[in-house]
Every structure is written in C-alpha cells, then in structure tokens.
C-alpha cells in the first residue's frame, strides 16, 4: 500500500540485531523531500546497516520504514524503483566501460535501447566523463570511479538518492571533486540521504544532520543548531610560558570547567556555556592573576566538538 508522500524517508522505531550485536536499537529518522540529510556517526554506529535496510538489502527486525511512501518490507520492488544508491559499497563494474555501466543500469531500469544510450551519454557529460566513456571503469582514478558511481545512482532520476560514505577512502583532490558533483545534484533538487564519518562533509553538504552512535540517534538539527547546543569556547593566549598556570586558574574560575592547555601555542581553552558573562568574569580573573593576555575571545564550537562530545557521552552512558 502506498502512503502519500510527506517525507522521502520515514523511519520509526527501527531495530536490527545481528547474531551477537544490536546494530540498530530504535532509530527514528525523517528526510523531507528536496533536502540533504547528513547521517553522521563513527565507524560501527550503524550507518551502513541503516542504509542497507533503506535500500532493501537487509530486512528490519522491527519498526516502520517508508521510503518514498513505500514500505521496505512489504513492497521492496517499489522502493527499489524510486531510489538510487552510490557510495562506498555500491560498485561500478570495472570490466565494463563507463558508458556500458550506465547503459546497463538504464536497461535494467526498464528503459528502451535508444533512451538508455542517450541517458548514459547525458550523464557521462554531466559528470565530465565523456572523454573516458569508452575505457573500462577499472582503469579510472578513484575520483572518476565515484563520479561514475554517482551518475549510476541518477539513472532514471530517482526521487531519492542514498550516498553511503561517498568520499571514504578517497584522496583529498578526489574528495573535493566528489563534493562538487554532489553539490550539483543538490542544486538539481534531488533529495539526498548522505552518510558520512567526516564532519566537514556533513557540514558542507547537508541541510540537516542526524548524529547516530551505537545504533541510536543522539542528536539532530542543522549544523548551526548542533554547534549552538554545544555552546562557545573561551580562548586565552598569553605572552609567557610561566603565566599559563595562572591563566588556567583564571579560566577555570570563569567557566567552571577544566581548561585544556596548549603549552606550545601558550593557549588555554575551556567550554563556556554562558558566553559573554564568562568572558567578562575571565577578564576580571586574569586581571587578578596579573596575566599578560595577548588574545582573548569566544569561539564557536566546531562540529567536531559537538560530535566528540555527543559520542563520548554516549560511550560513558553505555559503560555505566
């Protein structure tokens, strides 16, 4: 039965257990049409399991999973005809040429011979692969292979494209190349579910981010909102090494948190939940300690801080 589409992906209470481990322990997730959702998590968080369930490669143990309005368990065939998948585990055929790869997928999607040929040519030129279209994909560079993989996911313009760690294992140049290609997809209005373990990638490509760890959703929101929840950091740089300890005392007093001290950069840092007030207290405290300050200020948390904070908290929670 087809449910009218209000979200491209709607997941409720999804659980999946493998022989010895719980891969997913109750995931709720939603991807709105037209957006890019970044699914962020460390290795082993359950990203790949989730993607495999969404793409009908695995069956969920329990929970409700709708993709483009179709239930993955009841109507996997319908789901498959409305998704494209690319990334880490979705391979291009190394023995076929770039053209043949795309042509085959178009044919398998039920397109006629002429249309399939045109579709393959269009996608090859769109992903700047026309020059190498006649070469076996096995001879492509890493970046070219991923571009071909992305092109393959777009054959037949599926309304939802799932990108599973699209840049894992790529060199920096190929990564930028791939990001650019994903950026073009986004500009074209395709709905994308992107899994990644790179924060920079999620920050750059995703409209919204869902952080998962150990099979659970631990946070979700826009990149800015996530950064805001982690608050600011108070940063103080001092002129002399010998003043570092005094500065650390002042920062601890002002923020109530244990500061990290970088001796080489002569910098003291601590999370400051109440921002400006902490900054004012720090100025007073530093004055009291008679520290000569070179630089002082509030800096916004990076997504890395958020991510590490979330995942380590989850780890401690699990250990208790």
């Amino acid at each position: 039965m087809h449910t009218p589409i209000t979200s491209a992906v709607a997941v409720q209470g999804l659980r999946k257990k493998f022989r010895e481990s719980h891969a997913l322990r109750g995931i709720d997730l939603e991807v709105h049409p037209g957006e890019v959702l970044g699914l962020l998590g460390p290795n082993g968080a359950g990203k790949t399991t989730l993607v495999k369930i969404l793409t009908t490669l695995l069956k969920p143990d329990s929970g409700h999973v709708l993709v483009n309005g179709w239930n993955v368990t009841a109507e996997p065939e319908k789901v498959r005809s409305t998704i494209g998948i690319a990334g880490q585990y979705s391979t291009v055929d190394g023995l076929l040429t770039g053209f043949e790869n795309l042509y085959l997928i178009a044919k398998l999607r039920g397109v006629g011979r002429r249309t399939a040929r045109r579709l393959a040519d269009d996608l090859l030129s769109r992903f700047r692969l026309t020059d190498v279209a006649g070469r076996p994909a096995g001879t492509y560079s890493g970046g070219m292979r991923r571009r071909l993989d992305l092109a393959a996911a777009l054959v037949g313009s599926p309304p939802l494209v799932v990108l599973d760690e699209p840049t894992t294992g790529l060199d920096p140049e190929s990564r930028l190349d791939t990001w650019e290609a994903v950026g073009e997809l986004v500009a074209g209005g395709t709905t994308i579910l992107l899994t990644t373990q790179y924060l920079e990638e999620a920050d750059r490509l995703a409209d919204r981010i869902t952080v998962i760890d150990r099979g659970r959703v631990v946070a979700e929101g826009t990149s800015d909102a996530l950064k805001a929840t982690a608050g600011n950091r108070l940063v103080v740089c001092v002129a002399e090494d010998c003043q570092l300890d005094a500065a650390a005392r002042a920062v601890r007093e002002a923020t109530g948190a244990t500061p990290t001290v970088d001796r080489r950069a002569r910098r003291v840092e601590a999370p400051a939940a109440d921002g400006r007030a902490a900054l004012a207290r720090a100025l007073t405290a530093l004055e009291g300690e008679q520290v000569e300050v070179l630089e002082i200020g509030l800096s916004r948390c990076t997504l890395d801080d958020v991510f590490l904070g979330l995942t380590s908290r989850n780890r401690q929670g699990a250990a208790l």
Partner: protein
Amino acid sequence: MTATTDTRTASPSGQGAPPTGASPTRARRSPVLRVLAESADLALRNLLHLRRTPGLLITCLVEPVVYAMLIGYVFGNSLGGPAYRSYMLGGLLAQTVAFTTTFTTVGLSRDLEQGMVDRFRTLPISRVALLLGRTTSDLATCVASMAVTTACGLLMGWRPHAGPFEVAAGFLLALLFSFAMSWIGVFVALVTPNAQVAGSLGLIWLFPATFISSAFVSGSSLPGPLSTVAVWNPITSLANALRHFFGNTPPPGFRVPHDWPAQHPALYTAACSALLIAVFVTLSTWCYRARTSR
C-alpha cells in the same frame, strides 16, 4: 509529491529523462517478458566480461583442446587408437558441457564478492533474472567450448554417421544438460563464502562426477559400486546419447552395459536435466533469498 516532481524535471538530469522514478515504464510489460529482458541484459554483460578477461576466455577455448589431446592421444592409444578417438567424442562433449558449471560458480561468486550482486539488488529487477542471466551467458560460453571440442574431434578423425537432425538433437541435448549443470554451479557459488573456496569446491565434486562415468572408458571396467554409479551417472548417459545421435559405435572390445539408462540414454539424460534444473533452481533461489535478506 508534485513539488518533488517539478524540481526534478527542472534539474539538468530531468531533461530527456524517461518517466521512471515513481512509476517505471517497465511495469507495463508482462512479468515473464520482464524477467527475460533483464536476464538478457545481464547475460550480455557477462559475455562482455568474458571477452575482457583473457584468462577466462583461454579456459573456455583452450581447455577443451587440452582435454581432447590428453584423452585422445594419451589414453586413446591404449584404448583402441583411431576407433576409440572417433567413439570418444561423445564423452568429450559430455565432459566439456559438465565443466560449464565452473564458469557459473566462478562468475557468480566473483559478482557476489565484489558487491555487484548488491548493486543489482538495489535495482528494480527480478531476483531470478540475476541468476538466469548468469546461466544464460554460460550457455553461450558452453556453445563456444562445444564448438572447439567438436573441431578437435573432427581433426582427430571423428565423423558423424547420422542425419543433420540427429546431430542437431545431440547438440541440443548437450545444451540442456549444460544448463542444468550451470544451475548446480549457481548453487555452489551461493553456499560458499568466497570466490576462492567456490572455485575449488566447484572442481572437487566435478572431477569424480565426470570420471566415474563411462564417458571415456567402458563402464563395466569400473570396480563394484563405482560401475553402478557410472551406469546411472547422467554424464554417462549424455555421452551414450550423443554417440547414439551421431551414430558412433564403440571400438572392438568395449563392453556396453544394458541397464535402463544405457537403453534409453537420451530420455534418461533429458529427465535428469529437467530434474536437476527443477531442484537447483529452487534451491538456488531459496539460498539467494536467505543469503541476501538476513
């Protein structure tokens, strides 16, 4: 929904894109035609692979020559020389055809290992098509191997002594049996963990299966229970059926058993093939589901 469709059509990919997506055009075709079309696409892909993998191509075209030489001249001389070489071809073809199974096993387990199967599974295609595409392309491979074997036979003095229809019937029966063997190959690939194990396991059972037969020797020369196995071995009956169709008689001194399969070799081979196909198509689709929907 309308909003998404609109944005999509506005996208560069949308231009000229077919109306797949939510409502695939394919859905209009009948399911049987669909499976056949998908299998044909995949079979063509497998044949492109074969053309671009020199190792496989050599195996498929040179192996039959090696076996023909080996059995024709190394064993053949002590078994009756030219008369044996003319008689042997049926057995040689039966063996060539039986070995099709290894192509299937190797090809499919490589696709499983490299994740190609997963890629195909995320496409809206029938699950049988993936396996059927493989066995169909191996049928084509088998035709090539059979042509090489037959050419070797002609060079070694084999001649058919029957009409064109009988000869054609013989080759068709061989193809039917090859198709059955190919489905065994699918099953082996699906129950083995990786391509390497699949490759060796695919051969382990095949050698005894081929040689405990009277494809090359008189079945009655085998000791005790082995001769019973040989009598009922479909490879024996295929070899006998081919000799029957080609009008090749055994060399002097070859005792031919008179059990039921030996009396009705073509019928027995066809029945065995049908049974093998039914059993292994069922087992394979079941294994495929189990392996891929954990």
